């Protein structure tokens, strides 16, 4: 019964949407403190390669590799963030743009480790490991009436879903905390924030590093979901794509990133012709959005109306 409902193709698109939501949040968090990061693709690459190499060469379990990948990305975030965040947001944008390109150049050139532009193959797959693990516990997918590959895709989807919910919970909780209010005030006016006694460089680095962590996490998971990565997966285009998720969906509210990633990942799947001209459309979209609706599709006002209509508060 369950076996007939589950379509592996839909589950896979669902998994991509969830990974993209993570990436969009990785741009949203620094942006909510007024910092534009163009390095999400680079951080994603660092996470992906770290985790892939650790699991391939040292036979580590995937979750250790994923955590190591995310940590590696956030350490890099601190190293790049501290010099550039002392200055205006423009410097960060340039430094992260440069960072992304350099990371790609290193992946292409460090042949002995990264196999150059060919990329890494045979990365342990998340779904298979979960399948083997649950078999070890004496569980067979057939027991709930689904095939092995359905179980693989379903388990990936569920793991990602739990992670995304955890991240969303963390970010929303943070927004209502001391840190979140500090970030908000920096976004509105960093000088006023500084004069109120907020250490703005500290909080900017915190926000930026969180972004790097989420991007690294998403990258590592991406590697273990796909099983194959190459430097081309982490190019500047990917960084711009992630930026568009957030800017299109709404960069002032967290639900905007979720909506943007969801909508713009699903779009090329539903409308095939969109996929071919995707980046051209993205480019036009960015220009039009900035001129007409710089805060993105969803903003606080729209959500308030929504809430009013439904009379019960759902999204925030």
């Amino acid at each position, binding site marked *: 019964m369950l076996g007939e409902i589950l379509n592996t193709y839909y589950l896979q698109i669902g998994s991509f949407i969830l990974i993209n939501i993570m990436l969009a949040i990785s741009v949203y968090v620094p942006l909510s403190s007024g910092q*534009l990061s163009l390095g999400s693709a680079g951080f994603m690459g660092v996470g992906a390669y770290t985790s892939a190499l650790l699991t391939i060469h040292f036979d580590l379990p995937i979750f250790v590799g994923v955590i190591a990948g995310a940590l590696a990305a956030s350490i890099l975030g601190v190293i790049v963030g501290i*010099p550039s965040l002392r200055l205006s947001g423009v410097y960060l*944008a*340039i430094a992260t743009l440069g960072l992304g390109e350099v990371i790609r150049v290193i992946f292409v050139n460090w042949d002995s480790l990264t196999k150059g532009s060919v990329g890494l193959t045979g990365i342990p797959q998340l779904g298979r490991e979960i399948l083997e693990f649950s078999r070890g516990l004496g569980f067979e997918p057939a027991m709930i009436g689904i095939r092995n590959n359905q179980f693989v895709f379903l388990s990936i989807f569920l793991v990602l879903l739990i992670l995304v919910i955890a991240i969303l919970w963390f970010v929303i909780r943070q927004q209502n905390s001391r840190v979140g209010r500090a970030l908000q005030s920096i976004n509105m006016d960093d000088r006023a924030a500084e004069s109120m006694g907020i250490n703005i460089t500290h909080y900017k680095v915190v926000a930026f590093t969180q972004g790097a962590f989420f991007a690294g996490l998403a990258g590592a998971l991406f590697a273990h979901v796909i099983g194959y990565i190459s430097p081309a997966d982490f190019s500047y*285009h990917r960084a711009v794509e992630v930026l568009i998720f957030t800017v299109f969906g709404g960069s002032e509210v967290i639900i905007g990133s979720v909506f943007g990633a969801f909508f713009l990942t699903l779009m090329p799947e539903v409308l095939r012709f969109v996929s071919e001209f995707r*980046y051209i459309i993205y480019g*036009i979209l960015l220009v039009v959005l900035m001129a007409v609706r710089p805060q993105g599709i969803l903003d606080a006002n729209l959500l308030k109306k929504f809430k009013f209509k439904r009379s019960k508060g759902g999204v925030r």
Partner: protein
Amino acid sequence: MLLEQIINGITLGSIYAIIALGFTLVFGVLGIINMAHGEIFMVGAFVGVTTTGVLGWPLWLAFIAAIVVTSILGYLLERFTLRPLRGKKGVSHLAPLISTIGVSILLENLSHHIFGAGNKPFNTSFSEISINIGSITVYLVQIVIFVISILLMIGLTVWLSKTKAGKALRATADNLETASILGVDTKKIIILTVVVASAIGGIAGILVGMAFNSVSPQMGLSMGLKGLAIIILGGMGNVKGAMVGGLILGLSETMLVAYGDSGYRDAIAFIMIIVILLLRPQGIFGSKVSQERR
């Protein structure tokens, strides 16, 4: 050998300097990083390829064509992406940055669709001619590039310091409101700045095509990044800084290729950004004001 490398480095550096000039002019006047400048430059290079390669026009005509096309692009960029954001309330300072990123990705993928992904050769009638001085070989192309970039830099400096339009531009860069009170038509000056910067980018595009003998839609990004690194090195909005910074980057890249690992050539620009941000964030020639937090 070393002398040859230095000549190569200076040629490359003078091209980088010209690209950086385009960034620095726009930043100086508008306080905006024009992320689309690299792609405008790339369009200039493709105009050069099409006119000299496909249509068989002479080089000087190719230059004029590139200047015309990129000037129009510059005007459109100002009209449709920068002007709507200016003076609007509630627009964050990141909006023009994001908007020009949109233009850059649009231009790159348009030329990808039109010209294809691969490298296009850029042949000039004199690309093989070289002069031997002692043991050193100097290509005529290198001399042409060097002379054109020097002329361009001198021309720009004179234009900025002596002419009325140049003075108005500098006044606007200094303080837009004061300049407009004193009777400068700042709207016109802003258009002029973006158009001139784009035209310079177009010239740089042809020079790069001549120097590397190949043009591709992806070159805008890597060259644009180098231009950005140079203006951070030389000081944002500083014309002299852009020239010196360009030469430094050109020379260090050539030295790395000659005596080190050529694969990491593109990494130098980034390392330079980080080092300069740590040591002297206002850049070599920058004043203290420009490092102010925006």
